[in-house]
């Protein structure tokens, strides 16, 4: 069955995303490349992560920055989630 997106992106955008993903894959280290080619679980993880980042540029970096800002203070994060001050609530 052919899936057709309800709101397909312009071809150029899809092409740009594909090119970016290909570039990231080309930058795998030799060791990562070996695992990527031999381990289906790692390969699907990397493919999913790259597709997610291509669809949501900067998402992972924001998540990392937010976690760094809390510095492992779980109670403060829980309190901010409860009061709507957490970055995820914005």
């Amino acid at each position, binding site marked *: 069955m052919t899936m057709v997106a309800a709101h397909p992106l312009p071809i150029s955008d899809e092409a740009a995303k594909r090119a970016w993903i290909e570039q990231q894959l080309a930058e795998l280290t030799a060791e990562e490349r070996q695992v990527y080619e031999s381990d289906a679980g790692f390969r*699907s*993880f990397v493919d999913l*992560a790259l597709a997610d980042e291509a669809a949501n540029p900067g998402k992972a970096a924001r998540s*990392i920055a*937010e976690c760094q800002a809390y510095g492992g203070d779980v109670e403060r994060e829980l309190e901010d*989630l409860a009061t709507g001050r957490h970055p*995820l609530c914005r």
Partner: protein
Amino acid sequence: MLPSHGELLEGFAWHCRAHRVDMTDRQREGAEIAILGARRVAGTLATDPTSIPAAVLFGLSLHARELGPTWRGFGLLVLQNLTARTLGSSIELDDAAAIELHRLRLLAARDREAFERASDGERRAMFEPMRAFVASRMR
């Protein structure tokens, strides 16, 4: 089937490198032990294949501290990847659901010591909210 230790560890190392999160050798060792622990916990909590992704996420959340600032994104990717690869399903998370799932993960991280002291039955009870929530978001 549980994801292999190597799959999780390689995925974590790549995720950190791809996002320029530097780790010392000691932090790397800590992450490796955390992933080992997370996998072991998941093996005891998952009662059927459909609960494995949530059990792995729960195990990783218990070890959030050792996984450093990539723990939130890494865990979500593991959840989505396992759900897609082993169950052929996906996890649907709107903004409210993403907040609730993160809250459940934070509770697991906060209650790690209690979890370690708990009986098997108590451990299952602690895992149940995350299992049920993930199941309700599976499509």
